């Protein structure tokens, strides 16, 4: 009887929420076992301490930070461009009555197009440079932002447009009210888009060998330098973690001010 009561309560209080840090223990144990019993010369599973050495080696050679900067630059520029274009297109398509029926098939097709397949095409048309990477990343991460904005403007547009006409807002002030009302949704879209953008950035560097984290990974793999590959994987993971934290930090105050998007 006591057990039943406890189970019910525990389910009620943490149905969601952040997983406790002690859940990291299995991963730490796995790495520790790997470190203790892994061989120094294993090509497939080098010990974690070697990963660290490999990353230090890349840092010493002076390619680590420039690559990270290159990757971050493409990533940040792409997020900014995608947010602007996505929000504007989303508002435009969402506020026209025939917008959905006219553009749905095209949008549906484009957003289901795997970014990986588009990278070689962009490379051959635009050449292999960081501008190409930017175009690709924007193309693949714009959809969550665009679609979220469109859905939100559709949701609020009836009430909002009545209010706007009744209060008599025009021009810039009208636009700023609209933008303010869709901002949380735009940010929700950015939240989905950001991890995707990072992956596609690395992917573009990976496939076309323009400088960045992706091309470091490729060259490590082509040299069969497995400690370096594992080390760079960890670096990429940390970058992803960092991006997640930044996005949550930026999102929190805006959502608090404008209310959460549903």
């Amino acid at each position, binding site marked *: 009887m006591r057990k*039943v009561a406890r189970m*019910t309560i*525990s*389910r*009620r209080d*943490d*149905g*969601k929420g952040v*997983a*406790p*840090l*002690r*859940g*990291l*223990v*299995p*991963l730490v144990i796995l790495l520790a076992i790997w470190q203790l019993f892994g061989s120094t010369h294993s090509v*497939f*599973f080098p010990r974690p301490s070697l990963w660290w050495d490999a990353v230090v080696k890349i840092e010493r050679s002076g390619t680590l930070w420039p690559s990270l900067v290159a990757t971050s630059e493409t990533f940040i520029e792409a997020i900014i461009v995608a947010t602007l274009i996505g929000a504007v297109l989303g508002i435009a398509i969402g506020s026209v009555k*025939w917008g959905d*029926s*006219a553009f749905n*098939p*095209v949008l*549906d*097709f484009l957003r*289901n*197009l*795997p970014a*990986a*397949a588009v*990278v*070689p*095409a962009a*490379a*051959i*048309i*635009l050449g292999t440079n960081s501008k190409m990477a930017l175009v690709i990343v924007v193309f693949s991460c714009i959809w969550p932002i665009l679609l979220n904005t469109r859905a939100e403007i559709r949701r609020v547009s009836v009430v909002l447009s009545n209010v706007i006409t009744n209060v008599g807002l025009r021009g810039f002030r009208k636009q700023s009210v609209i933008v303010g009302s869709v901002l949380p949704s735009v940010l929700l879209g950015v939240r989905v888009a950001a*991890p995707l953008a*990072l*992956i596609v950035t*690395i*992917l573009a560097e*990976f*496939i076309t060998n323009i400088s960045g984290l*992706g091309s470091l*990974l490729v060259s*490590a*793999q082509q040299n069969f330098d*497995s400690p370096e*590959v*594992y080390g*760079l*994987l960890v670096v*990429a*993971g940390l*970058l*992803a*973690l960092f991006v*997640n934290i930044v996005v949550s930090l930026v999102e929190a105050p805006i959502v608090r001010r404008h209310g959460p998007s549903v």
Partner: protein
Amino acid sequence: MAQTKTKSRFIGWFAPIILLILWQLSIVTGIIRFRYFPSPVAVAQAFLRLANSGRFYGNLSHTVIVTLVAWIIATILGVLFGLLIGLSLPVWKGVMASVDVLRSLPIIALVPVGVIIFGFTLRLEIVIATYAALWPILVNTVSGVRQTRSELLDIGRIIRMSRVERVWKLILPSALPLILVGLRLGLGLSLVLAIVTEIVGTPNGIGYALINAEQALHPAQMFVYILVTGVIGYLLNGLFIFSARRILSTEKSAEKN
């Protein structure tokens, strides 16, 4: 009503056709001047040529089969471990943070690790695609199971359902919508990663054909393969949504009875 529906469908076809015409015109008239940007007509011709060759279908079926195999493995593993983690609070507290770390590793950075371990083999493709598809399925199963309403579980206990019965008859059905969302995301990821490994080096499938066409400077052929990947993704997605709706609607009607 029916008229407006056909009308909106007509508009839906309108936009792509206009886009195609603009694309063709801008290349014919030389407004767009990229050396390797094919016109839609050239792409259509390349498609007809490819469609008559046998290797096209071989590559196509290779990618689709890899995608589906990886997705099925990921589904089995994801739902199984998702249930395991979601059903028990101590297990959830004990491993979920590790799961979060593993799933947030950028999957593309795992490809080189896979290449070092497996080489450019079929196994690489399946392992990478499975890994990518696993996490959304697992995480959605976990949160679906954990969001089962406690009233429902209380009722199960009151009418003395066994643990297995509770899982099968109460928890799984109520977690089903979220699990289906995870399955859909997983299917898309599985396809993308299959193509990525093919582009990077596995000598088979659509991705391989695509990168070959690029290196042979056949942009029209390459566009055919890009469109084909889009169509595969579109069809798999559509097929999945269609069957998921069927499953959910039978689930609902069973509830009513």
